[in-house]
């Protein structure tokens, strides 16, 4: 589903160039559950932004469902975000003083294809918040807020759900609840990409990509190969 080749990203601030991502190459297949791991400043958030069409790469190639999306304009990217991506953020990013239903409904406002509003009720039910449907966002607990955010991410039936430190602002119990919802999603075939610096959270995923200083330092499939090689060597 995602093919990245020699992805390079730099930021220019007041003529100072900062290299953030160096020559990353990897593929992600449909239905995978991946963690992108790394300490803060490793470039994992930037990588998520690029993969989620919030940002563009400086050099290299990004193919999404076989289509080169490296050089799309802002409106095309917005359309792709709307159609194919669902985001879950660390700080929830719900609209203030707005009902759960309206928050979940938000992506449909910007959808080019018309969808039935009943989907909103369905996704709210799927995260177990039907009884909170008419509550305002500020009346919810942290765990509930994040479940609303997940419902919002799902309402447009996206290809990929990105979760950026989804448990970062939650207590461990709500954190586990959120992670199990994400795992459930993946079990039902949704591609989930988790961005985190916590090993315990990352381990919920089936595959872990590790970044450090903008470089890919390990991919667990590579890791398995290394193990396989070393096993061979042992023989």
């Amino acid at each position: 589903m995602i093919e990245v080749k020699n992805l390079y990203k730099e930021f220019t601030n007041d003529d100072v160039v900062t290299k953030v991502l160096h020559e990353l190459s990897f593929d992600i297949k449909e239905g995978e559950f991946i963690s992108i791991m790394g300490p803060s400043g490793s470039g994992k958030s930037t990588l998520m932004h690029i993969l989620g069409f919030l940002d563009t790469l400086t050099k290299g190639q990004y193919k999404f469902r076989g289509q080169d999306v490296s050089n799309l304009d802002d409106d095309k990217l917005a359309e792709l975000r709307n159609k194919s991506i669902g985001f879950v953020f660390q700080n929830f990013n719900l609209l203030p003083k707005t009902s759960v239903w309206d928050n979940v409904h938000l992506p449909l406002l910007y959808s080019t294809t018309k969808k039935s509003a009943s989907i909103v009720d369905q996704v709210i039910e799927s995260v177990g918040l039907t009884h909170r449907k008419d509550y305002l966002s500020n009346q919810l607990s942290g765990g509930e807020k994040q479940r609303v955010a997940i419902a919002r991410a799902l309402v447009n039936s996206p290809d990929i759900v990105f979760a950026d430190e989804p448990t970062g602002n939650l207590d461990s119990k709500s954190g586990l609840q959120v992670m199990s919802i994400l795992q459930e999603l993946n079990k039902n075939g949704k591609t989930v990409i988790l961005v985190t610096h916590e090993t315990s959270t990352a381990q919920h995923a089936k595959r872990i990509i590790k970044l450090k200083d903008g470089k890919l330092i390990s991919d667990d499939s590579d890791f398995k190969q290394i193990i396989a090689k070393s096993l061979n060597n042992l023989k």
Partner: protein
Amino acid sequence: MISQQSKYFMFVRVLLRNKTRSFLTSLGIIIGIASVIMIVSVGAGAQSLIANQIKGMGSNLIGILPGASEEGGPPASAMGVSITTLTYNDALELKRQLPEVKAVAAYVRGVGTITYQNKSIDSTFMGVSDRYIEVEDTSVEFGSFFTKEELHARVVVLGSEAREDLFGDLDPINKRIKINKESFRVVGVMEERGSAGFENQDGHVFVPLETTQDNLLGVNHIGFMRLSLVEGTDSAFAIQEIRRVLRDQHDIENIEQEDFTVQSVDNALEALGSITDALNYFLAAVAAISLIVGSIGIMNIMLVAVTERTREIGLRKAVGAKASDISRQFLIETLVLSSFGGVIGIIIGISISWAVSLVARYLGYDWDFVVSIFSVVLSISFTLLVGLAAGWYPAKKAAALNPVEALTYE
């Protein structure tokens, strides 16, 4: 199905999240629009009041003042300068020579102390000829007005207010009063007229013209004359004829040398109308400045809102809003704010104008309640313009935000 309507209703709901602020933001527009509507309406009401009063004096009424008219402005005599070119004989000649003239009255005015027993008032005494009642379309309430034969008599007719001041509830007829120490017999009391034109004639006392000239003022001229025309007379033609007769009387050959000014009520109305119009537009323009201030207030608040809602904008972009969606949202929000202000302002402006007209009528003025459609349409277009102008820059700023920066904005 997701309709476009729910999308726009969403924008209104955003404003409802912050009701107090939305209201305060609109307040500038509310006050601005209300004052424009009110000023235009009250101005039109005041204009109607003056016009009605002048019309009340009779639309086929012609006034003749001594002294030449200067550049269309009022003659010097109207400014209080005494010019002696007009006489009672001129008035009589006009009536004699012109069939168009129905009645003519000559006036000369003086100020003095009027005394009855131990009561005295300072008032205007008006020396008038016997046709005064006919020309002014008024009548006596008690007694009678003096006749042509009594123009030399020592009699007086009191204005209703003067009578009240001097006599209270007593019957004044045949009582003797003093005007500047000269003794007069009261023969009549005028009916109450209210303030007609610019002066309150109820407070005056009316003395026969020649008595006033000879015994009170010691003059031969008259202050001005008024004449009424026969029904259906073309007033422009009548004015030409009047000027011809008066030129003859004064041995003047050249129109430029005329030593009198002839004015019809229509003339006066027109001149007055252009003055009050100019005043109204000026006041409305001043009020419009408050609209501009109001719109700057809206722009300011919208700019604050863009900063405050940076993360919200980032989120909207993250879930698929295009730059055009964001700018449209902010533009519509501003338009809703300003049109809300506009509508409330129009309602308040009309209500106040209506209240003013009620009070004015209660006080006995002939006041029309006028709301000009023009001012309402102008106000509505102005608020929409204000909304667009005030919303454009903040909307552009919001739309230009980078989604990643907006999402991570602290």
